[in-house]
């Protein structure tokens, strides 16, 4: 396996950029040296693709180019980039300038790609993407619905640039917003622009960013600008992808925020479980300092802003603002019970502005193109775009950026490609462990995803996790899963969260193993209401949402578990069994072959049967049956 040693260009000897105008000259010089039509292979090296071996593909592609060197007129450049978003098809690469898209690439394909596509200009059909149900594969990125239906503002450069080379980012427009701010905007004007854009925090609560900046700027004393890169929601990877794919957008956003609030010091709080994000950010800070874009006297002006990375140990609760600041101070990461905003008294008791990674990444584009441009995306109450990490039972698992107000149908079916294995969509979970489960197929499939709308129906936007669940999802098990997560992540200092969640977990566990009792649902509601109203921090006051929302929308499933001792979705093992329907079974024998426990018996072309005492309920037969003959009982 290739190691993560990507060459980070050393720019220490480059002349610092000494005025905001010089940045434009520098960019022109960089662009002059680049041929937009030159062939370039962008290998996705985001965390998802890396996990399936994209670094090996990268090395193999480089080697293949070098080996083919002599007979190619214009050698394609092989570039390492951040996440392209289409994580379920990795390792993947795009071939510029044509915009070809190759997926599930292995190092063994490298030589062929160079020979056939780079030299010969032919496509390799095997590596093309074929949408579910389609006959013909699609060759170009722009024609693939997953990409074509997205609107990229935050992710504009993610997947296009080499995150380890600031020159690539500058050529693509990084730091232009900061240059604009420094060449004539006052801090008030910056804040006004952000207020006009109606940008709301992307970290969960959706607090208006401009107003937060304004109230922080109004405080006396030294100001701190802090970026929340803790991203602890299970199944969320938006912030990781931004930090890994375009760290400069975050740094630039923070620098603009610092300018607006008169701050000279920033911190990036990133969890240590994001090693790649820590690497890209560290390289980005160093290179930006070398070029005079961050640090002392930025672009030759009086404005100085130093920033550094602090790594957290990955506690979910450390994403909460007061816990994060305690942790930054070197104290235990527990939320503080203080009725005072951190914009007034936060880190080191000084006015501190905390924003999410994605919030900061929105800022440069807003400054550059103006607040009104930003509000042209999204809805009245939720302006702009939002990045979602689309996961679960959906074809196209990955990172998706759409304007606020896009319908769930468009996200799940249009972009996500629908539900695999001809299953029915059952629910969509948004907002991570603090969010709720939105039941579908009722009227909710066409709701417009935005801060207000989601809250209205008992869920929330959260940071943008979106888990799609098909008919084989047990909602009791889902709420048990989230409560279990929160019990492990609770800091334990306040009574409701510590004791209440523990009791709820016990009760839910009992229900899923068939020991549910009369009154359990009412008790869950009682404790859930209690934890939601009496807890100390946001973790506790939203912890019961997954339970309360599933009880509200899927009460009959709880009843089935408790009264009939049945799990209708076929998930809770003690509460169901598989049976083969003799009417429709053709006796093809596939289930018999697939069964790892040898529990299926039957002669060819005759209906098969399952030995219940041998069955381990692994679902293999259920999944493999082509005739829907296996029933959950």
């Amino acid at each position, binding site marked *: 396996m290739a190691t993560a040693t990507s060459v980070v260009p050393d720019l220490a000897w480059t002349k610092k950029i000494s005025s905001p105008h010089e940045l434009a000259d520098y960019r022109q010089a960089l662009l002059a040296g680049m041929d937009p039509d030159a062939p370039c292979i962008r290998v996705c090296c985001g965390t998802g693709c890396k996990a399936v071996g994209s670094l090996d593909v990268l090395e193999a592609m480089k080697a293949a180019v070098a080996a083919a060197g002599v007979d190619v007129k214009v050698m394609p450049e092989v570039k390492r980039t951040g996440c392209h978003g289409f994580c379920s098809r990795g390792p993947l690469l795009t071939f510029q300038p044509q915009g070809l898209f190759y997926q599930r690439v292995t190092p063994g394909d490298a030589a062929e790609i160079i020979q056939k596509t780079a030299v010969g200009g032919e496509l390799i059909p095997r590596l093309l993407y074929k949408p579910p149900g389609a006959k013909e594969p699609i060759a170009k990125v722009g024609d693939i619905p997953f990409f074509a239906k997205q609107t990229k503002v935050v992710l504009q450069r993610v997947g296009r640039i080499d995150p380890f080379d600031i020159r690539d980012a500058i050529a693509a427009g990084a730091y232009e917003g900061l240059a604009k701010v420094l060449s004539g905007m006052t801090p008030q004007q910056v804040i006004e622009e952000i207020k006009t854009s109606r940008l709301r925090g992307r970290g969960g609560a959706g607090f208006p960013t401009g107003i937060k900046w304004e109230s922080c700027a109004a405080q006396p004393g030294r100001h701190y600008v802090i970026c929340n890169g803790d991203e602890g929601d299970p199944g969320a990877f938006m912030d990781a992808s931004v930090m890994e794919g375009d760290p400069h957008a975050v740094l630039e956003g923070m620098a603009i925020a610092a300018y607006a609030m008169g701050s000279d010091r920033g911190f990036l709080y990133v969890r240590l479980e994001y090693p790649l994000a820590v690497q890209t950010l560290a390289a980005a800070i160093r290179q930006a300092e070398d070029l005079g874009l961050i640090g002392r006297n930025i672009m030759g002006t009086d404005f100085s802003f130093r920033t550094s990375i602090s790594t957290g140990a990955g*506690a979910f609760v450390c994403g909460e603002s007061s816990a994060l600041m305690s942790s930054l101070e070197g104290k*235990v990461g527990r939320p503080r*019970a*203080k*009725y005072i905003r951190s914009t007034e008294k936060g880190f080191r008791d000084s006015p501190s502005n905390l924003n999410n990674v994605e919030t900061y990444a929105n800022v440069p584009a807003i400054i550059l193109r103006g607040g009104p441009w930003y509000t042209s995306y999204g809805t009245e109450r939720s302006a702009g775009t939002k990045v979602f990490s689309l996961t679960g039972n959906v074809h196209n698992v990955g990172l998706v950026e759409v304007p606020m107000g896009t319908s769930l149908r468009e996200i799940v079916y249009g972009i996500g490609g629908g539900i695999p294995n001809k299953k029915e969509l059952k629910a969509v979970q948004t907002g991570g462990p603090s969010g709720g489960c939105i039941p579908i197929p009722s009227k909710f499939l066409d709701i417009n995803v935005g801060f207000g709308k989601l809250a209205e129906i008992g869920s929330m936007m959260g940071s943008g996790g979106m888990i799609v669940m098909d008919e084989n999802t047990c909602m009791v098990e889902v709420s048990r899963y989230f409560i279990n997560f929160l*019990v*492990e*992540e*609770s*800091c*334990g*200092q*306040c*009574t*409701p969260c*510590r*004791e*209440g969640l*523990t*009791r709820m977990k016990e009760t839910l566990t009992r229900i899923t193993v068939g020991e549910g009792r009369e009154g359990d649902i009412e008790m869950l509601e*009682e*404790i859930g*209401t*209690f934890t939601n*109203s*009496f*807890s*100390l921090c946001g973790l506790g006051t939203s912890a019961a949402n997954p339970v309360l929302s599933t009880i509200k929308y899927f009460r009959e499933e709880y009843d089935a578990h408790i009264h009939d001792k049945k799990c209708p979705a076929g998930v809770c093992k003690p509460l169901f069994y598989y049976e083969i329907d003799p009417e429709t079974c053709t006796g093809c024998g596939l289930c018999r072959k697939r069964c790892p426990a040898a529990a299926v018996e039957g002669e060819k072309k005759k209906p098969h049967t399952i030995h219940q005492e041998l069955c381990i309920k692994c679902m293999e037969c259920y999944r493999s049956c082509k005739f829907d003959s296996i029933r959950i009982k």
Partner: protein
Amino acid sequence: MKIVMDGKEVAAERGQTIVEVARRNGVYIPTLCHVPALEPAAMCRICTVELAEGRRSRLVTACNYPLRSDAEIHTDTPLLRQNRKVLIELLASRCPGSETLRELAERYGADLNRFPAEDRQCIMCGLCARVCERVGGNVLALCGRGVEIRVDTSFGRLSPTCIACTACVQICPVNAIRFEDVDGERRVIVRGKEASRVPLRRCTSCGARFGPVIDLVPVLERAGESGVPPFNASVCPACSRRNLARRLAERHFEQHAVEPRDAGEES
């Protein structure tokens, strides 16, 4: 600033917490983790009340909410009573023996046996840790996370910095911390486990063991209160009292120059 508490206007000063105002005006708000001498931590949450400031109405903890503007407070609504009941029931399962909880249970109609007991002999009010920090000891702290959170010394070892002041013993509302003076040492015992052993002084007068040996300088440093004169008694309280009495008597006789009477001489 106009503060209305449970329908009655009450006297309050700007910046006072709701609990302070309530205590001053004889309004009952239950607390488990609050003592006036310590910075509030708002951990137990039982003092949660309903607060309406302006148009917004919300739940806040009374022990640490500073009143800064006109407000209307409800301290005993059905919603609060219901949630306090659940809170007491949940806490009772981890500390079944608590007298405080029993009294509260009566008030709020809580069933102390609703949840199966798992006796941890602690209601997790954190007072011991906070008072320890306040006196500069930093011996006891809240360790671990989530359900496993507990009061303990660093790494669960005998503490080398404890001064055996026993403030934690005094403050614990469920009597889970005690101390013993044995073999010339004072042992502080938290939930049956020894937290520290501090040698006891020997009285220079009578030879009896008394109070712990305290190296005060670093303690005062940690507490950040320089200039407090260190006391370093070398005699036990009983001898000290006896010595003082003797000195007083001697001075009295000196001042009044009363000749001690001779025994047997009648006037």
